[in-house]
């Protein structure tokens, strides 16, 4: 019986710096397809990607790339392409020289043709002979992607690849990543923007405060995010009466009067949005202000961690 080796596998991986835990007991395995690594800034996404890329040793647990230990084995890089976010590209090289340099280091046959090909793939042919120091942030991201593709890696790790891209470039990169995933590659990209992940990823890993808050099929996790309890504060002409009226609706399961405002907890965001105005109107109450109090990504992730 043959077993399929996952492209990327983490088993109970933690990484800490002194007293600070950047990644906390994370386990998952990924195969072909596009996976989004979602989380707010500082959640541990970059640390996780660097662990996966073998650029950081785990403090505990194991990281495998294609069945090989990721840290301390340079040979894994024949399988992996990495597009780091923060690491600078050498500004004194032209785009073409930088990509060719990467092709030479990978030992790619016919490096010149491959260089031209991947530069065309990321649509930078016109700017290829310009010094990288003249590139915009989006162009730098794209030239890094071109450099990561020279050896046709089976695993592609991208750290915030859409940062700095304009909407057209963003669409193009999404299309490119989809195409590469369809060819059987395992692609993992990080983002702190839900919509980016929603549009591209088939599977999702949600990181929050160093922990894996959720993982799996994107749609089911999206549903979890939408169906969580939602909190609002309301200012109206009669908060007490409005609270009583809202509590009679099944979409609302809690009300409270706090600091001159009405705090409402709703189980269903859509249903609450539909009933709040009609209920107020029926009770003859004027609504002055309706504010969601937990609509940040952080609160969503925090909820997922608590579940």
């Amino acid at each position, binding site marked *: 019986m043959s077993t399929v080796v996952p492209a990327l596998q983490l088993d109970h991986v933690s990484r800490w710096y002194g007293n600070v835990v950047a990644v906390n007991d994370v386990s998952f395995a990924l195969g072909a397809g596009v996976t989004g690594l979602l989380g707010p800034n500082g959640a541990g996404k*970059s640390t996780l990607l660097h662990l996966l890329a073998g650029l950081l040793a785990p403090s505990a647990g194991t990281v495998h790339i294609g069945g090989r230990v990721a840290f301390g084995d340079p040979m894994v890089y024949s399988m992996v392409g990495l597009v780091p976010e923060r690491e600078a590209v050498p500004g004194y090289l032209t785009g073409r020289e930088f990509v060719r340099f990467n092709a030479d280091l990978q030992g790619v046959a016919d490096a010149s043709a491959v260089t031209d090909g991947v530069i065309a793939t990321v649509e930078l042919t016109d700017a290829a002979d310009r010094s990288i120091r003249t590139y915009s942030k989006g162009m730098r991201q794209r030239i890094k992607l071109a450099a990561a593709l020279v050896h046709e890696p089976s695993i592609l790790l991208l750290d915030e690849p859409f940062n700095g891209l304009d909407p057209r470039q963003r669409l193009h990169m999404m299309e490119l990543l989809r195409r590469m995933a369809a060819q059987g590659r395992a692609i993992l990209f990080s983002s702190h923007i839900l919509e980016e992940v929603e549009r591209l990823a088939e599977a999702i890993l949600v990181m929050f405060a160093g922990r894996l808050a959720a993982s799996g099929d994107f749609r089911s996790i999206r549903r979890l995010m939408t169906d969580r309890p939602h909190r609002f504060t309301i200012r109206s002409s009669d908060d007490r009466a409005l609270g009583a009226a809202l509590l009679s609706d099944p979409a609302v399961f809690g009300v409270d009067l706090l600091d001159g405002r009405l705090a409402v907890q709703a189980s269903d965001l859509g249903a609450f949005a539909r009933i709040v105005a009609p209920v107020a109107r029926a009770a003859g109450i004027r609504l002055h202000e309706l504010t969601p109090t937990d609509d940040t990504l952080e609160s969503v992730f925090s909820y997922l961690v608590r579940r």
Partner: protein
Amino acid sequence: MRAFVAIVGVTARALAGRRRTLLIALLAWLPVLLAILVRIGGGRPDAPEILDALVIRTVCPLVALVVGTGAIGSEIEDGTLVFQLIKPLPRWLVALAKGLVAAFVTSVLIVPPMVVTGLLLGGLGPDAIQTTGGFALAGLVGGSAYAIGFTALGVITGRALIVGLGYTLIWEGVLAGILEGTRFLSVRQATLGVAAALTGEDVGEEPLAAVLSIGILVVVTVGGLALTTLSLRRFQLRTAD
């Protein structure tokens, strides 16, 4: 081989483009300026004295420090090294390429001004040429050993310039002169030992024996490359989150 040549080329371009390298290149030519001033003023001090005191003891370690720490340390600082490390290449190859570039650039920066200084002060007589040639060769091997040692320092610590300056100024400049038994831990003393053996000149204090000097420089060179390789194998990225 293609990867090795590519790393050599990119490292050399990176070093050549750094402002620090240009400034240190100017410093390397300072002895020439001094020699010209001496000649214009009609004076003619001993060439060995200038080559020993100014070039071997001061210019050589400073140039090697800036170049050596720049060969990898600067690439770690700005993050460009990552693109060389995420490749299926043995780390010794990266270390060797960086070390050789550091040694070569250091030699290119210190040897020509040494030769010009020696010729300006000592003239073209056979003894003077032997002295100049001897010091230049000592500068070449000593500067290379320094550069490779400082390359390793650039991978080990983010404060390589400060640590290197401390080693050069405090250890080599003061302590190795006072504590006789520690001179074998000084690249400068080994370089002066080579210079003394090649020129027969008095280099201040009793020089180390030629064989011991060469042994020290070989240990520093090979040890520096080994240390760079080991440090690159254990290299970990600094991550912000």
